[in-house]
């Protein structure tokens, strides 16, 4: 809540008034261009639509920067992910969407050269504070990857994996969770008769829905989808999009996508990122129909990217 107030104080001036640019002395321009920020190797003050401010946030990103060795990949990104809504991250390749997403459940820890500045909070708990148990943190966050990655075990074991690693042994609990998750992921009818077959025998689209079932089995506070449809055919993509629609409300979803239509179809909010900066963030309709910044418009209308 405090965070939201702070953002209100900082962003309420947008879009018509001059953004406060005290630390950018020498670049007094009417509209700050993201290209200028890139040229000057500076972060960019994002254009955040006011309607976001009324939302309750499940995840807050606060001046988050990330470096791969000497090169900076994310530049002081600040944004909140609303609870129970679908938020899409769009932007051209290499703009840091996936990096940002993977920072949420600290998957970037697996890469040695990564260094971060700033912080993130999941329902008020810091993600990057010293002494945070990464394992416990990841159990609160579900993630689905670009390529379906079912584990080499049965469908049943795939779904209850997160319970298994928590040491859950009771068969009734496992079966209940398995059925509920598969139902939520819209896979129950197809899979109920072959729960104990290898998950690797499912089709690509089924595998991806299985991965979603696996991710929601642990009742995550936020669900991260990293281009979940990029490896699927149009029909399977359609089913996943329907699924995201259904999950909306019960889960808070942060999704990376390359597909503009997908973002406009499925998400409530859209954040446009470019070259490691958050450029514009607001309700999906506004971002696509009447973006406030020229760069956003150029991108969503397909003029670049």
């Amino acid at each position, binding site marked *: 809540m405090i965070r939201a107030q702070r953002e209100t104080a900082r962003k309420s001036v947008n879009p018509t008034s001059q953004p406060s640019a005290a630390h950018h002395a020498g670049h007094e321009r009417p509209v700050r261009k993201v290209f200028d920020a890139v040229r000057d190797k500076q972060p960019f003050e994002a254009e955040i639509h006011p309607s976001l401010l009324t939302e309750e946030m499940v995840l807050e990103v606060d001046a988050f920067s990330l470096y791969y060795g000497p090169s900076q990949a994310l530049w002081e990104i600040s944004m909140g992910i609303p609870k129970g809504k679908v938020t899409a991250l769009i932007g051209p390749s290499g703009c840091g969407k996936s990096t940002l997403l993977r920072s949420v459940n600290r998957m970037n820890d697996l890469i040695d050269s990564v260094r971060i500045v700033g912080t993130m909070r999941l329902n008020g708990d810091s993600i990057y504070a010293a002494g945070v148990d990464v394992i416990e943190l990841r159990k609160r966050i579900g993630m689905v990857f670009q390529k379906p990655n079912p*584990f*080499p075990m049965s469908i049943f074991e795939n779904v209850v994996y*997160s319970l298994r*690693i928590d040491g859950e042994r009771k068969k009734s609990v496992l079966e209940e969770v398995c059925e509920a998750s598969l139902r939520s992921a819209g896979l129950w009818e197809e899979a109920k008769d072959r729960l104990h077959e290898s998950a690797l025998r499912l089709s690509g689209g089924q595998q991806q829905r299985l991965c979603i079932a*696996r991710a929601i089995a642990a009742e995550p506070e936020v669900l991260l989808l990293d281009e979940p449809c990029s490896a699927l055919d149009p029909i399977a993509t359609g089913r996943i999009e329907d699924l995201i629609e259904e999950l909306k409300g019960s889960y808070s979803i942060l999704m990376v996508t390359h597909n503009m239509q997908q973002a406009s179809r499925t998400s409530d909010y859209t954040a446009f990122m470019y070259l490691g900066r958050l450029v514009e963030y607001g309700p999906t309709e506004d971002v696509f129909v009447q973006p406030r910044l020229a760069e956003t418009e150029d991108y969503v209308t397909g003029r670049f990217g």
Partner: protein
Amino acid sequence: MSELLEAPASTKRYVRRRSAVRATSLFSNGEPMVWLTGGALGLCVLMIVGMLWLVGMQGVATFKPRELVRWTTVDGGVLLGEVVEIERYRPNDAQLELLSEATRAAARERLAAQGGEAERRLVRTENFELTGTHYTWVSDFETRERTTPEWALSIERREGGPFYGVLRGFELDGRRIAGEPEAAWTLLEEQLPAVLERVDARRAIEREEIGRVNRAMEAERLAVRRAELEHGLDTAAARTARELFSARELGFKTEFERLRGEIEALDRQNSRCALRVEAADGSEQRIPLAAIVRTYPANRLDFGDRVSIYTSRTWEFSSGEPRESNTEGGVLPAIFGTVTMTLVMSILVVPFGVLAALYLREYAKPGPLVSFVRIAVNNLAGVPSIVFGVFGLGFFCYFVGASIDELFYAERLPSPTFGTGGVLWASLTLALLTLPVVIVPTEEALAAVPSSMREGSYACGATKWQTIRRIVLPRAMPGILTGMILAIARGAGEVAPLMLVGAVKLAPELPIDGEAPFVHPSRSFMHLGFHIYDLGFQSPNSEAAKPMVYTTTLLLIGLVVLLNVVAIAVRANLRRRFQGAQV
């Protein structure tokens, strides 16, 4: 339109270029490489098939009963035996000089008629105590007569090798009770089973009863020694132990006497029957039935008899114990030793290798040190195996084993228990030898597990170890089993290091048996590979042992194949579980 115009031009260019290639280089065409690669593969297959064929044919023929042939040479010598080999050769004058003057001219004439070439046969004559030789070459020009006596017997004896001779009668209590071969053979067939039973009984007494008394006596002796070591030589405790021992010793001695009496009774009973057999030189020999393992009239066999003799010999080979310094009898102890050692080795090497590979691939930070370790492990596979044998002897037997002896088996010193070669040390040595064979494929299998799977597991909140145990290891299991298969193949066929750390020519007891504590890791053992070496190069009669070398080799190859097939079946089963994995 412009594309259409361009098309012929490009075709033309293509044609010109192709002709240019043909003129300059044959190899860029690719076809010669097909011949080269295919030829190389063909050669490899040919060599392997050739070796297997040789071993298979020779090994299978070992137990075939052969005809017994009697030869009379032009100079009046007589031979009786089995033909093992026929070859053509060009005799020189020196060989003709050996003939007597009367026959030399005729032989020379005959040789000339054959264009200087003669045929000779290697005849297994045996009857070593009479002839002093096992084999004799007979050339066609020195042969006067060649017959197959109807009642020629091939007798496998317990000692002294086979005996070939013509049956002349059956003897009971020193009196000949049957003069005719038919009658003698009938009597023999009647009496032999009972005699063999008595021989087995005698053997059982020797091995089990006397062995039991011996062990009890040894335990008593060790108790005295232990008391002496613990309390000092000249103490009350030691004296009591010694007195107790001498009191018990008497009991043991009477027990020995009793057993010896039983054995003598059996021997007396057995020595009553004997065969009278005429050897090739015309002398009649007495062969007690107790000395016979198996006998058959080699020239009177029908197909059924042949099959039954072949089966009986094969059965003896695979289930019996060796006789006659391993050149006869069975190889069961060697089969048992090989399998035991290989299994113990696999149980030791697989967990160690997998753990080492896991650390190298999953935990260790990639860097020069890890690369160095990896290279070192790979190089370990190239170290001559005898070096591992020397290391095993020095470290396991003489250092670890001797320390164990001093701590736990002090009363048995100076005769070592663990301080000498044994099945445990041999297994450990081979485990060390096959370690790289396990580590390398395991590491490759671990590296082949897609990182997307690991990430998926981490994203579910799994720890590193949970990810390894539940995702990485199951996925890498086929690769790990490949490593195990290679290790088994390598370990089961290894001989050189075993000679130093525990394989022996003849092990009186198996490493696992019915005597408490049932598993005896310190015992030395017999090994098929060592058995082959011993038969082929260490036996006093290497020519007679040659067929056994082939058969044993065939058996060893079969055993390795069997162990491999089992492991491959397990791996195929695992692979089927991950079928359809396109990741």
